[in-house]
């Protein structure tokens, strides 16, 4: 049910979302810098194979593309993606003391953003009946896998947020 681009979304909600995306991207950049500086794992492209074997996937935002924008479906996908990244960040807990605090902050900010989206969908009466689950999470069997997982999740999250920022910018 395509609604007018931004008719149903209050401006303060959109401004808050844009701010939250910028905050999470800043947290994510700090995590990437720390993983690179501490473990010399600076290039996600050299960990793609490992990512496949660990089952680290990208969250889809197909309903948010400017060509086929469905605001309600886009909010659903945005929320589900954030829930997926919340789970991935939680699975990465215990990576190492150097990145622990950054990981916690990132996880809290992603959770905050997911709740903000969910409550807006509830206020609009378009929230799905049950809250989406995180689905199967990767299990990391070595310190290296957890660190490499951190690099991959941070990189996927940045591109996910880039797409989200573009659509929120368009809606605002």
């Amino acid at each position, binding site marked *: 049910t395509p609604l007018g681009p931004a008719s149903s979304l209050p401006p*303060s909600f959109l*401004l*808050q979302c*844009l*701010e*939250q995306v*910028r*905050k999470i*991207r*800043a947290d994510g950049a700090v995590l990437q810098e720390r993983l690179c500086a501490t473990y010399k794992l600076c290039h996600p492209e050299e960990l793609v194979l490992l990512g496949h074997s660990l089952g680290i996937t990208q969250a889809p935002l197909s309903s948010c593309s400017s060509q086929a924008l469905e605001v309600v479906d886009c909010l659903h996908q945005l929320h589900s993606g954030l829930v997926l990244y919340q789970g991935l960040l939680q699975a990465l807990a215990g990576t190492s003391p150097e990145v622990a605090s950054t990981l*916690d*902050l990132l996880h*809290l*900010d992603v959770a*905050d*953003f997911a*709740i*903000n989206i969910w*409550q807006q969908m509830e206020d609009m009466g378009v929230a799905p009946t049950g809250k989406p689950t995180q689905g199967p999470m990767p299990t990391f069997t070595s310190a290296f896998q957890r660190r490499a997982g951190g690099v991959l999740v941070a990189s996927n999250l940045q591109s996910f947020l880039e797409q989200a920022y573009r659509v929120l910018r368009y809606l605002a």
Partner: protein
Amino acid sequence: ECGRISLSHPIVRLGDPVTASCVIGQNCNHLDPESEILWKLESELQPGGKQQRLPDGTRKSTITLPHLNHTQAHLSCCLLWGNSLQIIDQVELQAGYPPPTPYNLSCLMNLTINSFICQWEPGPEPHLPTNFTLKSIKSRDNCQTQEEPIQECVPEAGQSRCAIQRKHLLLYQSLVIWVQAENALGTSQSPKLCFHPMDLVKLEPPTLEALDPSPEVAPAQPDCLWFRWESWKPSLFMEQKCELRYQPQLREASWALVAPLPSCTLHHKLCGLLPATAYTLQMRCIRWPLPGHWSDWSPSLELNTAER
């Protein structure tokens, strides 16, 4: 056991009466059974004890102190033994006031330590051990509906401030928050406030930096200054607006204001100034258009305009 005091209330309002009774047991047998039970408050004997012999042979004295004006005092039950006054039992009396209502509750979100810091005025001294607790509940639609409570924040002893950790907070959701005070004589609550933690971010001031104007430009424009600024790094994710104030370092000079300005710029030219004059510049920023607090004014930047 030789004797035991029991109190109506160990803690009363300052000036209220206190009633105590002291029962002297049989096993104080080496005592003169007729000797009077005496009361002392701190070191002063207190008249007015009513003594009676109980059916089981024990003796009981009851006394009412009409007004307890000490915030703390020791009440002793004594017996005369030979010519020395023997303390049989002693209790501590406390007097004070119910907790006053805490007021002036105010909070700030500190992005550096990622905590939500609230402080309040405790009100007049109640003279009794009083516990303050910062309570808060997550809520929605501007605090009309309340959801689950947040873990209580207990300040350090004697402090009237408390920091709620980031992990207990939802930065972009409404929060109902208040202070509760409690002591032996009652509890009281401050008025309840409602806000989004993120709307109470206190920004640190922006940083100003002089720009060396390219040599050929400067003499041509003696009424201009070049500089740049950047708002506080941890707040760069926030859309902000800033204000500049400047004044010549002359007697009775007043501040001129330039607003609104963007949160950062690599190159800014300020003209319409007096040539060959020293100027003081300061800036401050605020989260905008979303709600926020003005930062303090930045440290001054001293710049001189060129000769004509």
